[in-house]
């Protein structure tokens, strides 16, 4: 990226952040609550993209979010931690759990990884049901304290929105920096040719573990944000259905660039709201969209825009 592009990018980011700061002023409380969930999901999709850039499409990510959520809930309820501490702690605990999970997972590839990630994640999720004295079983944990920032109660959705916005901006900046670093590029190289990477001196298993841990850490942060907002956490929220929504957001957006999954999330969030009247038909719509994208736009909206952009400017290799 040259200087003028960097400047453009910085100005654009500032404009978006400025817009996000002003946004709740013109909206009703329901919309602000939607925005709160949206910010959680922004962190979630970007962190999922982080792990899938290595080619490891797994089904554990939503459970990693749950690990962060349960950690934050327990720390806030039982240890009396403030929200400033529970959010980063949730990320660290999720990363640690991800490390343990990655020990067997990094021995599998492709379809094996896909299924194994589901199995291990389900093991974690079922342990929340089984060990009900700690995790509250089916009912989960309720009455999670929400706390205050600068003397303002976070119970107010608008105040919570600003906290979420700050956390989301920090998380996105961190993920963006990792994505453009040598680490991010090595992750992407693994998905194109792991054998070549291995013979090129790259410790493939280390980098796959690192990607899973980093992605899980940010998913954990997203989980903490969600749980503090809802005031409760239960195993149902992190089941396969939720995971499939996450996959749909990322597939629709495309993983080719950092911004693809966010675009996918925005489009599908609007779609989700529009189909509120056809509740019974919604799984069919979403399933259909997933199939259509996989067949006709395997690189998602990101790939489509890139193609159109290349056609307009008629130059090859837009990826610099």
């Amino acid at each position, binding site marked *: *990226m040259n200087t003028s592009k960097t400047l453009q990018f910085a100005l654009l980011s500032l404009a978006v952040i400025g817009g996000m700061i002003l946004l709740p002023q013109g909206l009703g409380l329901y919309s602000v609550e939607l925005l709160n969930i949206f910010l959680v999901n922004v962190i979630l999709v970007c962190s999922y993209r982080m792990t899938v850039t290595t080619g490891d499409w797994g089904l554990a990510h939503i459970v990693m979010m749950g690990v962060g959520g349960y950690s934050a809930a327990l720390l806030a309820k039982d240890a009396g931690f403030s929200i400033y501490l529970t959010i980063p702690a949730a990320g660290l605990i999720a990363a640690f759990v991800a490390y343990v999970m990655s020990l067997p997972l990094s021995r599998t590839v492709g379809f094996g990884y896909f299924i194994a990630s589901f199995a291990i994640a389900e093991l974690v999720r079922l342990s929340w049901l089984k060990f009900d004295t700690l995790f509250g079983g089916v009912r989960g944990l309720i009455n999670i304290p929400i706390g205050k920032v600068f003397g303002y109660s976070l119970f107010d959705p608008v105040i919570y929105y600003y906290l979420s916005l700050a956390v989301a901006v920090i998380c996105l900046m*961190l993920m963006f*920096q*990792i994505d*453009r*670093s*040598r*680490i*991010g*590029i*090595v992750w*992407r*190289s693994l998905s*194109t*040719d792991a*054998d*070549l*990477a*291995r*013979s*090129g*001196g*790259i*410790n*493939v298993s280390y980098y796959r573990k*690192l990607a899973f841990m*980093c992605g899980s850490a940010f998913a954990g942060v997203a989980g903490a944000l969600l749980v503090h907002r809802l005031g409760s956490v239960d195993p149902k929220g992190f089941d396969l259905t939720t995971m499939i929504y996450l996959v749909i957001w990322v597939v629709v957006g495309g993983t080719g660039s950092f911004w693809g999954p966010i675009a996918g999330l925005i489009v599908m969030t609007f779609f989700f709201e529009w189909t509120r009247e056809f509740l019974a038909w919604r799984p069919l719509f979403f399933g259909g969209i997933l199939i259509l994208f996989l067949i006709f736009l395997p690189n998602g909206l990101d790939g489509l825009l890139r193609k159109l952009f290349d056609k307009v400017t008629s130059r*090859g*290799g837009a*990826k*610099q």
Partner: protein
Amino acid sequence: MTPILDVKSLTKRFGGLTAVNALDLTVRTGEIHGVIGPNGAGKTTLFSLIAGAMRPTSGQVFFDGTEITTWAPHKITEAGLARTFQRSAVYHGFSVLENMLISMHTGCRVSLLGAIFNFGPTFPAAEIEQADGILEFVGLSEYRDAQAETLALGHQRSLGIAIALATGPRLLMLDEPAAGMNAQEAVVLDELIRKIRDDQGISVVLVEHDMKLVMEICDRITAINFGLLLANGTPEEIAGNNEVIDAYLGVEDLLDEDGDHA
């Protein structure tokens, strides 16, 4: 002088099949060493065993005096033994330059914190300069910014070699570098392999079907068949060896022909 590569009684069995059978191979430092043999002789298996992609059933591999038999592939590459693949192996979706930069991984690792607090360019200018140097060396400078998968097959194979060179090897193992190349490309390759040894001082082992290339550039040749050592010697000795001629059926004819690369 310690040989750069010393393979001692290496054996690999797949169930009942013995792909490599008690094979010895010694590559002297600074030499170009050819490994020949008919299809299914165990050449590629031998390569995979040396490079750590497969574990041998028994036997030992020494690289510059150090035993590397059970090392992981990336450790072996870090130690200075790089390999190329029979297929054209490049990173799709990345530019030619990025292909190089990814492979210059050894020695310039980045920590997570280092990545987060790096506000400059992803790759330092010195690394890009080094990558450009290698691209120029293999003759790919003009394709620097092209996507790797859009290159012609011959160029993709050169890029494969460049990727291996980017890891900073002392020994380069080339798996059928001339496969699928036309006569003209094979001549360029011939020159490149010589240059790698002469200018960069890198020892080379190559597995090859193209007898003309092997006979022309190799200092020593090892012929194998059915995983067994057939003969060891200079190109002249190998060309005159009856067992090798029997195994190949018509090697002599191939040697007499000009520029016809199967």
